């Protein structure tokens, strides 16, 4: 495997939301009676339908000391409703070969179903039950707690993940954005059925939900079916929703010792929100610095010239309420210090001199040209549409995107590099065999 990883690209893509220059999406939008915002893209090529729910029920709504509740709620959705046991739900899904998955992030929880067209009604009825009539039985709660604890342990086994976790904690101290959605073994112990039910009742509500449907069905047809199947899903009480204030933590060096052969390095600082007007200039700048896969300065200087790492990249993650910048790389313990120095030099260089005209143009051409090609599956389209709505970009966004990228100038790139890359604020996390890595200030 030469190049970097599809999974990583997919994530980067979800966050950076490039645009459609040659759109075949024909998206439609409406608001259902119960408040669900429905987005659709009719795709008739295959007899299948994907439904992607984005619900404002992420871990940032967890009260302090109750971390992990949102995640536990999301995991338990498919483990028992008033009419069906966990096993019955699995049997139904497996018998129609459907794939149903739930996940929990910091802002939103998601529920995704992909089903053959002929089984759509079965799938819809099950989704409606899951979202309105989950029961959270004590036995299932216990089972999921054990499973979450195991997954927290498993993360500890992956030095890259450990570096990521330590970085988030240091970047957003005392904020829900600095915590892991899973919570801790301690906080999980405190979660009980009453809390789960309360969270479910409060946050799993139609007016907090964006639903993207992509596949072999029209907007009108799916809207009718949804109205029918989701009749019991009613608006909830209004929630005062003030996003947490999350000032970034100070510069720091954090060392974690592990008996491993490579230093796993994550270094970065605060960034911008998705709504920041400089977002597009930042994406272009970051592409040149380290976002551009094999066509980036970090890749040239760390990997190609010196052979220090297999993978090195930088990323501006721009979420609805917070943002961050991070460089991620792995190198053998002994060269950790050198790799960090080179990454810092590249950060300095892009802040000091204008990028070349050719670099700018290549970055713009890639960002604009690659977008429609990335929306090459129904799932990718569903994810895209739901995020366009969540970030408030509007359905015209795909047509506007090329211009938003094209108008970024060399001066803009220099300006945003100076403003948003802050070497004096770098938090550097090194998970390594510390005796060999010998990281200095």
């Amino acid at each position: 495997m030469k190049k970097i990883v599809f999974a990583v690209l997919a994530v980067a893509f979800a966050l950076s939301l490039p645009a459609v220059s040659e759109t075949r999406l024909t998206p439609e939008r409406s608001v259902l009676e119960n408040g669900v915002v429905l987005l659709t893209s009719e795709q008739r090529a295959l007899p299948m339908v994907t439904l992607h729910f984005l619900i404002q029920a992420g871990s940032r709504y967890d009260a302090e000391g109750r971390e992990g509740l949102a995640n536990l709620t999301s995991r338990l959705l498919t483990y028992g409703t008033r009419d069906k046991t966990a096993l019955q739900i699995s049997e139904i899904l497996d018998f129609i070969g459907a794939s149903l998955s739930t996940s929990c992030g910091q802002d939103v929880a998601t529920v995704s179903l992909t089903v053959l067209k002929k089984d759509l009604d079965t799938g819809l009825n099950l989704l409606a039950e899951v979202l309105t009539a989950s029961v959270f039985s004590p036995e299932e709660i216990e089972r999921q707690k054990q499973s979450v604890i195991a997954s927290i342990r498993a993360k500890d086994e992956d030095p890259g993940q450990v570096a990521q976790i330590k970085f988030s904690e240091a970047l957003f101290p005392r904020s829900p954005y600095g915590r892991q959605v899973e919570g801790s073994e301690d906080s999980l112990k405190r979660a009980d059925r009453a809390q789960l039910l309360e969270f479910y009742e409060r946050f799993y509500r139609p007016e907090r939900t964006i639903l993207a449907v992509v596949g072999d069905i029209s907007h009108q047809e799916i809207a009718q079916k949804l109205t029918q199947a989701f009749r019991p899903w009613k608006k909830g009480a209004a929630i005062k929703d003030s996003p947490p204030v999350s000032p970034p933590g100070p510069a720091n060096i954090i060392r974690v010792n592990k008996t491993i052969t490579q230093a796993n390095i994550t270094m970065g600082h605060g960034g911008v929100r998705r709504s920041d007007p400089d977002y597009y200039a930042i994406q272009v700048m970051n592409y040149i610095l380290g976002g551009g896969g094999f066509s980036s300065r970090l890749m040239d200087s760390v990997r190609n010239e010196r052979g220090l790492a297999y993978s090195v990249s930088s990323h501006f993650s721009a979420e609805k309420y917070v943002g961050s910048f991070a460089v991620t790389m792995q190198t053998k313990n002994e060269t950790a210090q050198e790799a960090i120095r080179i990454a810092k030099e590249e950060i300095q260089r892009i802040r000091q001199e204008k990028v070349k005209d050719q670099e700018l143009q290549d970055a713009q051409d890639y960002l604009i040209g690659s977008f429609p090609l990335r929306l090459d599956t129904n799932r990718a389209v569903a994810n895209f549409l739901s995020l366009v709505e969540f970030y408030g970009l509007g359905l015209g966004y795909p047509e506007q995107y090329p211009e938003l990228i094209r108008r970024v100038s060399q001066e803009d790139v220099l300006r945003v590099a100076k403003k948003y890359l802050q070497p004096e604020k770098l938090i550097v996390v090194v998970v390594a065999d510390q005796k060999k890595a010998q990281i200095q200030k």
Partner: protein
Amino acid sequence: MRLLLGLSFFAFQLLLSAPLLAQTSRVQEFVLDNGLKVLLLEDHKSPAVTFQVWYRVGSRNEEDGKSGLSHFLEHMMFKGTNKVAPEEYSRIIAKNGGRSNAFTTQDVTVYFATMSREKIGIEIDMEADRMANALLNGKYFEPEKKVIMEERRLRTEDNPVSSLAEVTAAMAFTVHPYRRPVVGWMQDVENLTREDLRRHYQTYYAPNNAFIVVVGDFATEEILAKIKAAFGPVPRGPMPPKVKIEEPPQSGERRIILKKEAELPFLLIDYHVPNLNSPDSFALDLLSVVLAGGRSSRLYQDLVYHKRIAQSVDADYDGLSMDPSVFSVTAQVMPEKDPLEVEKAIYDLLERVKSEPVNERELEKAKNQIEAAFVFGQDSVFGQAMRTGQYEATARWQLLDSYLAGIRKVTTADILRVAKKYLDPDQRTVGVLMPIKEQNQ
């Protein structure tokens, strides 16, 4: 591939474990005068075209002391030709809006790019160029060797489950080259020379030892003309040597324990099985789904749900390999649980499928899962190209057309028969990861 893909492993699994079937295939086959086979599949649901060159060479073609040669060569193929400067290939693809990558498996080395219809000619020309004219530039040899050693550290040395898979394969196969890792043993990689690469390239990179797969939004005649113009002049090479090594029959269980810093124990049980050229392959596919397809499957229900001794389980039949490979059952063990208890529970379930037929509904459910996954798999042009290429590499792409029919014909008696035949305790190799905790800090 499995070992090498590392992070992207799951993304690939999603694509590949969904066997794609076309009712009647729309794949068209052409063979150029120099022996290069071209497989074209038009699919206009998204504006993307995936172009792939498959070379019939992988770690299977390597010798002792030279492991990792095919993979090393894959990396060096990005170091330019007389027309394209080192690392320019990726840059040219990217600035034309495309994404490119390459990977090496036991059996094949594959290069690919996904671009728009207007731009795909750029990829075609550059692939034809490096089929014949790669410089394997000396100056980049040493840095790239370091990169590959970092890749091995990242994906294998510091990844306990990958390490387990590596040592278990080295024990399951005593003679056949599948016993060697695709990335190569560290010492071997270090010892490889420029001359090794040169010879490997000259022996295996020729139109008559490769084939092309193109899937997506193109017109057959137009793209075929481009392919002929670019690849037609590449001269035919001598026929590469055949691999004639057969793994001798195993008589008696083999066990290996890996002690490594990790959090959760992991269990890997390999049974020798034939590839998809055997009529038993359909029943083996279905057997893996009965055992571990979805949350209602036997292994999941028993080990994860009821006994709560495993965090996850899987059963995987690898029929897509050129030589006979393995049917593997894996389990991530819950914290504080005994891997031996998990192993015993797995054997109890395997004994059951060997002693009594699965029930009809269970078989129907497994068939439905495979059929649905097949349709879902057609959602991605890349996934379709992968599956077509794998079938062609292993046997013939035409077998894809009869795949679903083959699945539908399987009876409960067939499942019983193949379970008895292949899940033989004397035919298994068991790998156990035993976590140890190093003195930290």
